[in-house]
């Protein structure tokens, strides 16, 4: 008993020492973001110190889980929220963030292509975007699929790794993608029916799907057009390539917004401008996304991230419609042939 108490006291002491180095400060700009952005691995590790040094504004970056959890938290906190800025709301969940954020006519807006601005009132300003795509192993010996409907060919039986639209935003992206191309009628149904045979598995999220892909379980995986960039930059290989389909691709856009009623409006504006200018390259590389600012020059590795000619922006799809599509999808996929 005494020993246990001793160990506990010791551990508490050690913990306090660890914690001491990270004491919270008074006058700071509080930014909510999703976890992979806020981590030292993510863009924040480099960007926040740079911003603090340049402007003298201290930033408290709060990682509020994933994108959805972040909005949920703002909703739960309501007017009492500590957040001055929220970063990383995707266009499909934007409607939930709107009640809590205010417009900002940033001078940088003119550098952002109009088709990316999903909020006409500029409450959420896009800062990066990506397009869902199938990535394939070009050395797998199969023919390269040239269109979305090519994937239903029987030579791809058990060769494709898909992601569940009920548990993953990437999976949902594919569902809306097929909806945009085929509608919700027969074509939609027959595409998914064929994919029942061609899908090796339908993973719960992007992480496990892509892990299966890199382990060589199947040569084709649902991911982003930008995925090959990592392999070029870090593995020095162009073996894994994103395929651009002529039918078009589903896009996902991430936005940043200033919280309504913040008393740090000026600082918040500076932060938003910083994210839209100097931070663009670092964010693009770390997130594997495209920058929105058209004046940005990307590293060469991004040559392997082909930009689709046609982009669908389903962010505005009615939540009820999304649910209807999911139900339909589930019926198709669980129906016994």
């Amino acid at each position: 008993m005494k020993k246990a108490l001793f160990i506990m006291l010791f551990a508490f002491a050690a913990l306090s020492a660890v914690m001491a180095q990270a004491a919270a400060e008074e006058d700071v700009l509080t930014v909510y973001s999703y976890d992979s952005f806020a981590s030292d691995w993510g863009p924040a590790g480099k960007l926040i110190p740079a911003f603090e040094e340049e402007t003298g504004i201290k930033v408290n970056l709060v990682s509020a889980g994933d994108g959805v959890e972040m909005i949920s938290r703002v909703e739960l906190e309501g007017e009492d929220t500590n957040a001055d800025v929220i970063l990383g709301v995707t266009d499909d969940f934007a409607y939930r963030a709107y009640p809590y954020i205010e417009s900002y006519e940033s001078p940088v807006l003119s550098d952002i292509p109009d088709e990316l601005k999903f909020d006409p009132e500029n409450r959420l300003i896009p800062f990066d975007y990506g397009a869902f795509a199938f990535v394939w192993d070009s050395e797998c010996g199969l023919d390269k699929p040239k269109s979305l409907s090519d994937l239903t060919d029987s030579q791809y039986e058990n060769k494709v790794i898909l992601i569940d639209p009920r548990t993953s935003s990437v999976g949902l992206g594919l569902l809306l993608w097929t909806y945009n191309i085929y509608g919700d009628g027969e074509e939609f149904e027959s595409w998914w029916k064929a994919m029942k045979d061609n899908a090796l598995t339908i993973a719960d999220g992007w992480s496990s799907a892509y892990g299966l892909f890199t382990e060589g379980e199947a040569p084709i995986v649902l991911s982003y057009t930008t995925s090959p960039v990592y392999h070029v930059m870090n593995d020095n290989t162009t073996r894994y390539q994103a395929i651009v389909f002529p039918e078009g691709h589903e896009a996902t856009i991430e936005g940043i917004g200033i919280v309504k009623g913040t008393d740090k409006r000026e600082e918040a504006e500076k932060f938003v401008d910083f994210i839209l200018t100097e931070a663009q390259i670092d964010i693009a590389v770390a997130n594997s996304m495209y920058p929105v600012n058209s004046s940005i020059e990307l590293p060469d590795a991004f040559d392997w991230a082909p930009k689709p000619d046609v982009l669908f922006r389903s962010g505005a799809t009615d939540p009820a419609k999304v649910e209807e599509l999911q139900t339909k999808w589930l019926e198709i996929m669980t129906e016994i042939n």
Partner: protein
Amino acid sequence: MKRNRATFYTLNALPGILILVVLFLIPLFFTFSYAFHDNGKALVEIFKDEYTYRLLVFTLEEALLSALISTLIAIPLASFFSKYTFPLRRTVLTLSGLSFTIPSILVVLGFVIWYGNNGLLNAFLMKITGRDYTTLQILYSFKAIILAHVYLNFPIAFLLITNAWTEMPDTPEKAAYTLGAGRARTFIHVTLPRLTPAVLSAFILIFLFCFSSFSIILVLGGNPAYSTFETEIYRRVNINVNREEAAALSIFAFFITSVMLIITSRGRKNQRATRKEKTLEKAKGKTLVVAFLLILLILLFILPPMLSIIYRAFYTKAGDFTLRAWNDIAKGSTGLMSTAMSGIINSFLIALLSSLLSVYFGSRIALASAKRNSRILPVISSMPMATGSVTLGLGFSFLAATVGHDSIYFSYILVIAAHLTIILPFAVRTITPGAKMIPDSLAAASYTLGVSAFRTMRKVEKPILSPYKRKAFAFAFALSLGEVNATLTLSDGHVSTLPILIYRMISSYNYQGAAALGTLLLAEALIVFAIGEGGRKHAIS
């Protein structure tokens, strides 16, 4: 006087119960209250929807099957391990607790690297048979789900049952043999009834775990028809953002798991036990050969997926040796080494504190429930297990939003408290069979000698519990080490533990780096287990 003693045990358990109520029940009730918005419209719809019942059937099927198979495999093994002593016995028991520490994403990866169609096992088989196609198609089927669940959970049954059986004196069995009863009859009529609390405990723990599993089911099952409640709850929380329906589904699932808990919590009290421990026989000759065969079998089952993760930390998919993942950790441009170091330290300290606390509170709750023959205490303390991680996460995020704090110090305390809530059920469940074996006569003798209830608990009852507490500590430590969601939600991302770093590595495409961090995690758990076993008798008392 007698009543006073019972009150003493209850009071003793109170702090632990209080923590559960504040940290778990209150946020949970707030979460559940969403289901009753709009006159409980969501709840009615869930009850009317036929799909809910389809989910229920599948979820029950996979959870019951996983729990049944795990316990059935564990019983014969436990019977051997609780009878004989032989070299490596403790090592095997320790190793089997390791699987808890690995975050589910790495379990999936480990499985794929080992059992995958393009995995090491198949590569090996192809080499032997000279065939150039996948010989063993294991993954992406219902049996893969069960295999993975048994892999993850069989150690629970193995450890709990072996532990209980070892502490159980074999005098009744000897008496039965003397009276001419056969082995089978003795086992069914003499051994099994006394073993039941431990077997049931293991069964229900595994059942609850598998009931709320979903990543493994979706990825390894390979078919959306294999969906559990948790999949749907996750969808309602994270994709469709319908808190009312999520809460309604959670209540439905919670109701079912609670019923299971109540059914299996029958207070069966054993008066026959004595303090005398069974002495293990030394395995010789034929038994020694059997022992080694069993060890080989167990190791062949539990080690490969873990070794696969370690293998991947050093070798690329093509089979080339590389230290790149380790270099990434050691000297990345943003000082990853310091991040990894603080991850190791954070993980260790949080796991150590929360598991010590869980054993401290858990043993008190276990004693109180055994003394009072209470059915409600084990149920209350198991509730966090019955809730499922998504619902728990929702509750914790509610808590985080309500507390709204700025201090990192407070973050740590919240995280430790949350870990405590999550692992406390384990501690209680592990210790309860031990507490039930303490005969009342022992305490009565002590009271007759004029010893107070407090002293009796400390000097007489606690020492009997200590082997159970050791196991509970190991479980709790391993579980806390692998925890991700609560840590993230409650610390605003300011507390980085190893599993969190693993997820971050993966989200930046670095699977090999994740495997390297996973290796560190396993190493850390192994070292702590080894130290715990080294200190045997009095390490945690």
